[in-house]
């Protein structure tokens, strides 16, 4: 069946609007501020083979790796009509434990034996148990990081398996919130399923299936075309994570990007072995980072689907920090290492296309988690937030101030929502002026966020780029490294980049995030 250019355009938007609507439903019905305010979730639609057909523009670190979750669900928990699978195991298609994924099959005809599509959503839950509230601890094995859920049937023929829910809720610190968020995730998949059924009813099964395939082919063609414009060659780059939170040893990530015609081969050989601390990444994270970078190099309007990945091959040697072996802890791999993987990929591409690639951006999500018992509201709490930084400058101009970069794009929790729900007070939320790297075009400034805790709590910070700032390019200076402080009155203490400790009521946690790297040598006046 032939899909004409207008149909291609219409279906591109129809499929992504299915994913967008799933996202709207999830955000509107979620219970935790992390989901309803920060929108730390992603939604996508898959074809009968589990290939990604469309996604909503949500969180890059989720999006590139979701196909592996759908694969794992298909392999381990066959899904009948009305079923839905839950999972979070990083060693079975997940990324880190707080990200819980729900996969649902979409059956169309009453006689169909297998689903015609799948829908899935992934949401970051503010707590999934483990050593410390927020489930991003400084662990040495994954067992300490929280509850591990292999693909399990959560909904069976339309009925929620209460036993599975009870098991999950018994292992987390804030069960009510989790239950509400899971209900929202179920609703989101239902919306996606409903929209796809309507779509097939309106447009016909053959047309919808053909359009899904045609769009993947189209994305592949566009990607190949973009790759052909990059000069052939092998481009290498390496950069470092500060440490794993348990030792002071910097951790190297190395990449060799080989461009040949309309194909790209990406090889992470030379990257340091996996570490004791939690900055290990599983392979899906690498795929997410590669997908993100490739997607950035092609046209903004390109549909994001599995076709974009067809021209690529990726090697991530097992046992390294970019493809850790079980049971290494992985909480930080998703949020920190993913950013550095992007930095090295872009650094390598910058050697091929010096004018097209910007200097490094903040390169960390500056994850802040606080948890404990709220003595005012008489309930346990866990709070999670990631804090924006500066964008790297480019040949086009200076970097933006204070936005999330690369692998994340979560919103901030509005102060008015935060203080309503938690025993905190935000003292300051401002630009960190002068933190962008100098250059012909300066990098964007990071931010300062200061939170006073109103009752004793457990604090975890998972941040990087606290020792070396994001790199500049073509003579531009690096951005200023981040800084974490704990203070009360005049007593100020510098905290490490990765830290867990008890804090007392009245103490103020200050996070200064890195600025972006500068671009080009600054001209002397």
């Amino acid at each position, binding site marked *: 069946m032939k899909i004409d250019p207008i149909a291609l355009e219409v279906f591109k938007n129809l499929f992504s609007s299915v994913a967008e609507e799933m996202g709207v439903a999830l955000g509107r019905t979620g219970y935790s501020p992390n989901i309803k305010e920060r929108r730390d979730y992603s939604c996508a639609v898959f074809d009968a083979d589990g290939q990604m057909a469309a996604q909503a523009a949500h969180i890059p670190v989720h999006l590139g790796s979701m196909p592996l979750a759908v694969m794992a669900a298909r392999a381990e928990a066959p899904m009948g009509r009305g079923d839905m699978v839950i999972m979070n195991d990083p060693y079975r298609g997940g990324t880190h434990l707080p990200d819980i994924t729900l996969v649902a099959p979409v059956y169309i005809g009453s006689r169909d034996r297998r689903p015609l599509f799948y829908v899935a959503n992934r949401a970051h839950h503010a707590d999934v148990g483990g050593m410390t509230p927020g489930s991003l601890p400084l662990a040495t094995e994954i067992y300490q990081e929280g509850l591990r859920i292999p693909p399990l049937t959560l909904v069976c023929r339309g009925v929620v398996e209460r036993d599975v829910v009870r098991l999950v809720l018994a292992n987390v610190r804030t069960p009510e919130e989790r239950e509400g968020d899971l209900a929202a995730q179920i609703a989101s998949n239902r919306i996606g399923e409903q929209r796809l059924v309507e779509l097939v009813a309106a447009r016909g099964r053959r047309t919808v299936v053909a359009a899904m395939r045609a769009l993947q082919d189209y994305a592949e063609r566009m990607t190949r075309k973009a790759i052909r414009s990059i000069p052939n060659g092998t481009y290498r780059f390496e950069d470092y994570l500060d440490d794993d939170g348990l030792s002071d040893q910097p951790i190297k990530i190395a990449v060799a990007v080989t461009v040949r015609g309309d194909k790209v081969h990406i090889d992470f050989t030379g990257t340091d072995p996996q570490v004791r601390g939690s900055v290990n990444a599983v392979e899906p994270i690498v795929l997410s980072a590669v997908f993100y970078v490739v997607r950035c190099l092609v046209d903004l309007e390109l549909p994001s689907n599995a076709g974009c990945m067809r021209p690529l091959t990726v090697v991530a040697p097992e046992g390294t920090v970019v493809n850790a072996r079980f049971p290494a802890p992985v909480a930080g791999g998703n949020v920190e290492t993913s950013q550095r993987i992007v930095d090295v990929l872009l650094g390598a591409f910058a050697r091929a296309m010096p004018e097209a690639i910007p200097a490094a951006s903040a390169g960390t999500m500056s994850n802040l988690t606080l948890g404990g018992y709220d003595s005012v509201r008489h309930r346990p709490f866990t709070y999670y937030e990631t804090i924006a930084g500066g964008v790297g400058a480019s040949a086009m101009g200076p970097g933006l101030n204070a*936005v999330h970069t690369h692998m994340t794009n979560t919103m901030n929790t509005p102060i008015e929502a935060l203080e309503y729900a938690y025993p905190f007070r935000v003292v300051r939320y401002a630009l960190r002026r002068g933190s962008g790297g100098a250059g012909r075009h300066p990098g964007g400034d990071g931010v300062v966020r200061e939170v006073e805790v109103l009752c004793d709590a457990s604090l975890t910070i998972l941040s990087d780029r606290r020792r070396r700032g994001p790199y500049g390019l073509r003579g531009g200076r690096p951005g200023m490294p981040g800084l974490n402080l704990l203070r009360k009155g005049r007593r100020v203490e510098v905290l490490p980049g990765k830290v867990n400790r008890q804090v007392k009521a009245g103490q103020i946690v200050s996070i200064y995030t890195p600025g972006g790297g500068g671009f080009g040598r600054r001209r002397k006046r």
Partner: protein
Amino acid sequence: MVPKSTASRTARVGIDTGGTFTDFIVASEGGVRVHKVLSTPHDPAEAVLRGLEELGLEPARCEITYGSTVATNALIERKGARTAFVTVAGFEDLLEIGRQVRPHLYDLTPSCPPPLVPKELRYGVTGRILYDGTVLKPLSRKALAELRRKMQGQGIESVAVCFLFSFVNPAHELAVAEALGGLGVPVSCSHRILPEHREYERASTTTVNAYVAPVMGRHLERLSRSLGKAHFRIMQSNGGSISAARAAAEPVHTILSGPAGGVVAGLAVGRRAGFERVITFDMGGTSTDVALCDGEVTLAAEAAVGGVPVHIPMIDLHTVGAGGGSIARRDPGGALVVGPESTGADPGPICYGKGSEVTVTDANLALGRLDGRWFLGGTMPLDEAGVLRAMKSLASTLGVSRTRAAEGIIEVVNATMERAIRVISVERGHDPRRFTLVSFGGAGALHACELAERLAIPRVVVPNHAGIASALGMVMSDVKRTYVATVMKEAEALSARDLDRAYRRLESEGRREMAAEGLARDDLILERLIDCRYVGQSYELSVPYCRDYVAAFHGQHESTYGYARPEQPVEVVAVRVHVTGPVAPVVLPKGRAPRRPARPRLVERKAVVSGGRRVQASVFRREDLPVGARLRGPALVPEYSATTWVPPGWVAQVDRLYNLRLERGR
């Protein structure tokens, strides 16, 4: 034709200020009259007053609804007041940080328009209120005096004030407003403009209000003074109108004033012609607005105008900087670019006699699609020789022929508008093939068919009086206002009597204000709505209020999100009363379909360039065309305020309401 309550007034007047023309429509017992005068951007009131005078209307006997682009233009062109932002110390950068997200996920070099308030005009004062309204740190007189001192001599023209939790306790905002009273500039307080939580969105909406308030205030004051006793209302962004006094205090509600009129009219015209699904296409002098109505006007609660979030309900509209006055030039890379810069009304396109840069209107003239003999009934001669000279020089910089350059300009501007329509249709899952394009604005009908062709839209309707549709929408708009009171209590803790009391308070306020607008009590439509959510959620759903509103909420949640949690406690966030003062429908002249299709009277044949070739187009005057008349393209149909271009292969037919209905011929 006149609202019952104001039957003593003789005429209802709709006025729409565009970038190039100010349009008038007068609906009275005698029928419908239209008029157009050149806009006066340095003082838009001048054109309004002149037009009324030229129409011979006595303001005291008029009921005027006015669509003002003053606020919109100030925001989009970043020509608003030098605005200061006052907030709690430590949060001065609130407007710049926003929600810390980048606009496009896969853009390596993201950019954002600069904040409305520059770094040096952001002021923080100590004074902090908590979520339950208690004062943590009082706002001292000293701090206020210090603030006033710092703000003096900065050339500040307007102030936006947004404090944390002001929607719970406005004390600090009120104190700042009072302390700054002496500065003699308008002060916009966030608890008045948008009393809702989420500090960034509230601050942004408030800042937009402050940014446009001085300009809008001056403008409306001048008009009110000159119009004396006329009943004078302003079109709001939601498709309803409000009094001028309120619009001056809260101009943020009028940010999409003019375009909203167009959409209201476009849908009304489309419906009467028998089409429920319409895409309105309003091409004016400086910009083009498109909106999609799938049976009704679509409202968006969270919109951004000129890249700035404005969180009040407004018509879901997409605007691009391409219009008749858009300037065509060669960019450094050698490409032909059209817009977004525009000549506006002053100096205007070359053909109006003052301009020097080639515009889209000039290109239409060069291609033979416009003609000075018809333009505004021949009252405004067009400088054809000047256009041809300028076109020749543009063509030589591009290295193409003069006709190719002129046609290229049309192609480029059409592509921009095609993209705009894609954003509101295909990108939101609507197939344009199921819609009718309703084209208005002075320039729209010259482009509508070619645009429809690019998008496979099967049909174009060019309404009678196409050039003044927005003004028509003004006279068709109801008076609308919503009254809200925050409740924030669990449903179980609220008795029907409590709620009833809250509703009655809102309703009597609504009746009082509407009476002041001259609307009779008996005509008002009052709707009670209740905003609910499950305890713990942060977005609410609005359902019509009834005795068992909790059950209605569960039902609504189920149908909107696919599930309900009947065992969960429900929280009432707010009670809400929509007050509508309906306006009697304007009766449009209607003809009778003849037995045999009438043969239209040909004025002349004229050479027009189309698809690179010179074709002979038939010219028919719109006012000569009887109901049922059918004409084949290539044809031109000029009328007083617009010209319709019927390309080769298209057929136009006049329907019973004198609309031109255009379809691709078989």
